[in-house]
């Protein structure tokens, strides 16, 4: 539904009084602006640039002296790293090293205690999390929707006001790539664990986001599907995207670097 309201654009840098109290006012302001843009025009994402072109500049994800606390424990302390477009960063380390914590704080669910994460060359108006796909332990699938409906929902939700036929095409292509085409009319409740995972990963293909945050993406996937995942990530990197993956299984990516996280010993 399009309403003929003047489109509102908001440049954060021009509003100094928000800079004074950003933590308090920013969420409220964003909600108000969000509502106006919702009704008036598609979201920022919807001006969907052709695939594989995320930014004019090379994207660079930068973490500076990041410290994240969970309860009483400082899980990540003073972590700095950089990763550029076209590169995958594999997070490895023993259980409890903070791989999930790191990914969740990049996605914006956890507020770091200190330090910051930024995406250079990204969209200044959006948080880093809003420019990323997050694949967590849960798949984000509704069992009462069919396989195709699940992907159609995410495609429409993540892309804003896009054309219906374009959306339909993207969903079909994603289903084909994830080898779920034959199951598209089946309620997601009847899928096996591996198929559900593939459906969850299909979300990566129906909307363009420069940064992929993958937390144990290979869980319950068979060997063929792991290869499939690797090829999708490969394609995303070639198009100028970034990926961070916490994984125990080598994905077999060409341009991958490893970031090894260790368990911090607590002083006795």
């Amino acid at each position: 539904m399009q309403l003929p309201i003047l489109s509102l654009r908001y440049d954060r840098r021009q509003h100094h009084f928000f800079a004074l109290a950003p933590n308090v006012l920013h969420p409220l302001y964003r909600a108000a602006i969000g509502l106006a843009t919702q009704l008036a025009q598609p979201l920022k994402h919807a001006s969907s640039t052709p695939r594989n072109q995320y930014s004019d500049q090379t994207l660079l994800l930068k973490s500076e002296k990041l410290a994240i606390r969970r309860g009483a424990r400082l899980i990540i302390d003073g972590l700095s790293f950089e990763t550029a477009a076209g590169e995958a960063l594999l997070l490895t380390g023993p259980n409890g090293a903070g791989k999930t914590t790191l990914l969740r704080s990049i996605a914006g669910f956890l507020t770091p205690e200190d330090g910051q994460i930024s995406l250079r060359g990204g969209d200044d108006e959006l948080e880093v999390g809003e420019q990323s796909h997050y694949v967590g332990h849960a798949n984000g699938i509704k069992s009462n929707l069919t396989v195709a409906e699940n992907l159609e929902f995410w495609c429409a939700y993540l892309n804003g006001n896009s054309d219906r036929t374009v959306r339909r095409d993207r969903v079909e292509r994603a289903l084909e790539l994830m080898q779920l085409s034959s199951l598209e009319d089946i309620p997601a409740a009847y899928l096996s664990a591996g198929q559900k995972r593939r459906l969850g990963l299909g979300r990566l293909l129906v909307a363009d986001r420069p940064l992929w945050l993958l937390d144990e993406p290979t869980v319950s996937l068979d060997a063929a599907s792991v290869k499939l995942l690797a090829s999708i990530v490969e394609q995303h990197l070639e198009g100028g995207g970034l990926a961070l993956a916490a994984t125990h299984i080598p994905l077999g990516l060409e341009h991958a670097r490893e970031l090894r996280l260790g368990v911090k010993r607590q002083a006795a």
Partner: protein
Amino acid sequence: MSPFFTLLRRDITLALREGGAIGTALGFYLIVIALLPLGLGPDLNLLSRIAPGLLWIALLLSALLSLGRMFETDFEDGSLELLAIGGMPLELVAAAKALAHWLTTGIPLALLAPVLGILLNLDIAAYGVLIATMLAGTPAISFIGAIGAALTLRARRGGLLLALLILPLYVPTLIYGISAISGALLATNAFWPSFLILSALSLGSLVLGPIAAAAALRIQMQ
């Protein structure tokens, strides 16, 4: 279609397909109201005098039954996190979900109320007013309820806690909803002031509910 309406449509589709939430709320409403005359005895004057109050209280309790599920399913299957970083502010996500709750629970309950009024010998003149006040008041139930649903998201036995947290906040809605009906019945001019305050409460909750709910959800997702 914008993300807001996409989410609204998905939630309504899910509510209709699952059916359980709407069915339980309507069934509970029916049973509570059907039990009341049995408990209070066949005094028609008494029943008709207390009917508006009983209908309102039972409606609050029925709506409360399905409130807990507002964010729970999305939280469990991971959708909530994805909705949160999907580009739409979390406040609007909460608003869409509360609106879907109102459309699938609030409106059916409000429309069932006059039918149940027959069981309580509700004055025939009160039927129109009853529907009007309930339609105007139920948005407050969904939008204030969203705050409670978000706060109790990870609490075990959250349903009971939800009732304790949220029912006191429904007091103004209840008071003005009933006083609007009695105002209309007693032919004083009390209907409009009460009705307008009731609408104002709903409109206020429409704005404040999603903001508070989103703040609670942010904490829950940490």
